[in-house]
């Protein structure tokens, strides 16, 4: 009897421990997940009931040119950011890792600082630096192109510029991950390979790169997911323009739901974004794992 009572008590204690999380989770995560799926099959406005319309929202989506533009721009932005930021972070981490003590701390502060800034601070600083008339970077742009460029109003410049701003802002995080990875590589491996007469480049290729692969794969995956969720920078710097050249899926969700009052349609777009992120990240994860095995 005592055993059974104890076991019941144990269970009750366990449930009391998980209750706060489970309650909040059900309310603000599980229920909205269910709701967004249900809404995507209705023609509901943002606030208020709608009617069940089956797959109509999804069918409409397939003929919506703006949807394809958004998908394309999301893809383009991923290309512009994911691999470049990973490569740059690895390079910076390798440089920083050589330093020691205060010198390393200083270098780390310089490269990591932008990461702690709120996104709107970042966009305001860059909007000022790239201001068409007075921006300090315009002479540099003029040097290469012959004249100043209103970067956020030019369809060819807008996405690459937002990519640069994004990399500047978030790169420090990746540097830290690589730095942690580099610190985990035993120094004996470098000493041994140095005794064998390996050059710096050989050491990087044979020791650093393969041992760092799990971190590289992690950074690539995290970046991919993060960059697909692009919204803040685009909304603040170009509002999706010019001519929708920086229009992305999350911006479409925002416009449809909060400006055009199409709650149902916006939910469908949100779910597609969700699916894209899931599929792409699972695919990438599998690819990276295979890549890791062949090493």
């Amino acid at each position: 009897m005592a055993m059974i009572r104890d076991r019941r008590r144990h269970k009750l204690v366990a449930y009391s421990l998980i209750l706060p999380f489970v309650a909040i989770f059900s309310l603000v995560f599980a229920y909205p997940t269910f709701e967004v799926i249900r809404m995507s099959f209705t023609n509901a406005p943002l606030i208020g009931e709608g009617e069940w319309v089956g797959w109509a929202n999804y069918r409409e989506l397939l003929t919506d040119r703006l949807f394809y533009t958004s998908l394309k721009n999301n893809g383009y932005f991923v290309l512009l950011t994911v691999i470049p930021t990973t490569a740059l972070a690895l390079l910076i981490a390798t440089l920083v890792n050589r330093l020691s003590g205060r010198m390393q701390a200083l270098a780390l502060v310089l490269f990591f600082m932008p990461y702690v800034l709120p996104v709107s601070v970042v966009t305001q600083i860059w909007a000022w630096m790239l201001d068409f008339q007075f921006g300090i970077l315009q002479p540099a742009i003029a040097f290469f192109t012959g004249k100043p460029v209103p970067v956020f109003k030019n369809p060819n410049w807008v996405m690459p510029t937002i990519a640069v701003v994004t990399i500047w802002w978030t790169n420090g995080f990746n540097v830290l991950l690589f730095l942690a990875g580099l610190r985990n590589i035993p120094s004996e491996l470098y000493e041994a390979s140095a005794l064998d007469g390996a050059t710096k480049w050989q050491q990087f290729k044979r020791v650093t790169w393969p041992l760092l692969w799990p971190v590289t794969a992690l950074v690539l995956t995290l970046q991919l997911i993060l960059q697909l969720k692009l919204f803040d920078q685009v909304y603040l710097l170009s509002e999706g323009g010019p001519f929708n050249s920086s229009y992305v899926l999350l911006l479409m969700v925002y416009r449809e739901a909060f400006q055009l009052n199409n709650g149902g349609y916006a939910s469908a777009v949100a779910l597609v974004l969700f699916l894209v992120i899931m599929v792409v990240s699972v695919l990438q994860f599998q690819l990276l794992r295979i890549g890791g095995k062949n090493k």
Partner: protein
Amino acid sequence: MTTTRKIENTVLTAITLVAGAIWIFPIYWAFVTSIRTESRVVSESAGLWPDELNLSSYVDALFNTQLINWYINSIATAVITTAVVLVTGMMCAYAISQMRFPGRRLLYGVVLASFMVPTQALVVSQFILMNDMGFINSWAGIILPQLIVPVVIIVYKQFFDAVPKEMKEAVVLDGGGDYTLLFKVYLPLNWGITTALGIITFIMTWNQFFWPFLVVTTEDMMTIPVGITQVNDAFGVAYARIMSVALLAAAPVVIAYLIFQKKVTEAVMISSGVKG
């Protein structure tokens, strides 16, 4: 060390620091701009060095905008969010890690799965929910949807799993229950993790833009990252003032980072699971 190695070393160190200085330049430039007068900011002759000390745009920023309100909203929502996330997360992680109950594996499965869900995809229905509950333009509305941070549970669980069983037995023999174990043994043993997760959650919440931007529509309830975008509209092209506001908005996290840099570095490494 040979002379060539020494030279190589010095050159690489110099390159690193110069690259770092270039990297930080935008923040430096924002600062130089902020202490100039508006006319100097757009003048042709203004150079790269701080040549003026004009604090009027800071005064303007502090007293002619709702910056103080935004600070209060940001601090309150970020502190409450961080505290609730940590407490609910550690309790849940302890139960998953150390206790046996029906639904345990399912719960952990759900936590892991929700780690994969982009919360941005839920904003439409979360907004409707907050509206139904009357939480638009309130701290509760800003806070509630931000309370789910699955990585906190995942990290806590990993560290609780690693606590040696002997530590547990001593307390159990003394008649201590699971609450005693959690708060007197598991938590004190993992203070480092708690501070690390706390720092990361705080920075993330403080810098959150998308959700607070959606759920708040009145200027006095905005958080710092959302509020400062209003200043832009209000001032038009007045870069000294815009930069002053931006730097004042960034100051708390920047100062906190400079004080706790080592902790922040460690926090990023631990919460991403790279540091074994």
